[in-house]
């Protein structure tokens, strides 16, 4: 990836309507390393679909989406998976496997994509757990955790392993108030080392306190993605 190249770039990307339900309009977005783009979207499902679009999971009928200079559509499965392993993501739905305990769910992507010693992974996850208010790592099944604990666990998982891009769906309604500040701090620390952030929000209350640090503000509607003035 070139030094001044965009981290994530959607250039007239028109998603396949059949597979996404997203309007087949051209989407344009450009996030440089360290930038934070906030996208207003009231519909959770549409936000999740757009997040999928940015991670190359939805075929395009036109245009291109590049992440770290690589076009998703030209990559093979193994390359796609490896590249997606560089993205930290918070999802609202379908992101917890009931087969494993929450601790394994948190560490799973990192254990899958890296060869870091297991102890180091546990140590890092526990540290992040402390940051987000856990006494350690929750080992119970995810479906037994409260919404607030799942939101904390989602944050721990997303920030694990120095991701290059953070795609954060809005969990502000579940995240406990005392965790908001650590969330901003961890996000800022990630941005400082060059990580881009794509942050979906439902209302301005979710990002109000962070607004000065936001570089791009857009709105995702049925008709497409529209640029707004950064406040």
């Amino acid at each position, binding site marked *: 990836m070139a030094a001044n190249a965009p981290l994530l770039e959607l250039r007239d990307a028109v998603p396949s309507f059949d597979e996404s339900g997203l309007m087949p309009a051209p989407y344009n977005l450009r996030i440089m390393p360290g930038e934070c783009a906030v996208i207003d979207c009231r519909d959770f499902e549409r936000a999740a679909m757009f*997040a*999928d679009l940015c*991670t190359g*999971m939805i075929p395009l009928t036109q245009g291109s989406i590049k992440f770290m200079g690589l076009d998703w559509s030209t990559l093979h*499965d*193994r390359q*796609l*998976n*490896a*590249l*997606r*392993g*560089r*993205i930290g*993501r918070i*999802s609202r*739905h*379908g*992101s*917890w*496997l009931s*087969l494993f305990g929450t601790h*394994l769910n948190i560490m*799973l*992507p990192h*254990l*899958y*994509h890296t060869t870091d010693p*297991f102890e180091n992974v546990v140590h890092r996850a526990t540290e992040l757990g402390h940051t987000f208010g856990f006494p350690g790592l929750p080992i119970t099944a995810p479906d037994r955790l409260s919404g607030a604990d799942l939101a904390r666990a989602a944050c721990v998982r997303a920030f694990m392993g120095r991701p290059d891009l953070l795609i954060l769906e809005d969990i502000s309604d579940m995240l406990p108030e005392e965790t908001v500040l650590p969330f901003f701090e961890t996000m800022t620390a990630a941005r400082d080392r060059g990580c881009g952030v794509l942050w979906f929000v439902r209302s301005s209350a979710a990002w109000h306190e962070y607004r000065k640090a936001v570089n791009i503000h857009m709105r995702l509607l049925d008709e497409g993605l529209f640029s707004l003035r950064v406040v």
Partner: protein
Amino acid sequence: MTDTSPPPPEQQASSVLAQMAPPEDSKDTGRFATLIGRFAPWLAAIGRLTRHQVRFTLLLIGAGWGTLRESLRPNSWRRPVIYEFRATLRQVIGGGFLSIVITATLAGLMVVSQAAYWLGYAGMAQMTGSILVSVLVREISPILVGIILMGRSGMLSLTEIGMMVLGGEVRGLQARGIDPFLALVMPRTFAFTVGGFTLGMIFAVVSLLMGFVVAHASGAITSSVWTFFFNVLAAMTTWDYLIIPLKFVLVGFFVGLGACISGLTVSSNDTMATIMPRGFARGIMLVLVVNILFMLDF
């Protein structure tokens, strides 16, 4: 305003055929095209049905090859994959052990004691070993082991993966760059393969042993247990040493693969009520097909 919509396919076919045919045969060709046009929907329906029925077989062949090929890459056996393999292996062997022992005991009671009794009655006691190897170990064991494997663990895998697909967890895995085939299908299939072999061997030994105990107690067999097992082993041919483990291995492999693939290919219209019967029927079919293929060749 003229109608510019294209004619239906049957009419297109008949018009093309009519244009291609020489003028003197136009009447016959027209009749032929009409005939084809009449049967085209039926042929299409048969084609659709055939494709639908063959789809699972083709998926199974492709996924089987993919599983074998991927398993040879050291890069495929990452930590979550190994974890999944161990967890499934524990479930397959631990979950099926008691069922296998009980079923093997019952099968042993029926087959060994009956064979020993009737062969002794007919003055063919020396055939006991070969009859037991042929009937119990080579033919009955793989089928029963396959059915237990499917009932105890295959249906569980099918349901787990199917519900993960319907709940969006599999898509969530993909979004994090975790290949569901590598993370779920491959380790589970190999766990079933190892489990099939282990449970099959347990089944064979327990069934023979329990059969011997009953037959010995009833006086149908008077030799020692060592002589009995020696006779059984002596009755086995070189092929038996290859085929019997191979059957257990293949039954395990295909039951596991079939369950995982069935789970991974559920559609949004599916529910538990549609997933389970389909998976059960496919599992039974796979167990029988593996055994029948061996029966044909050997």
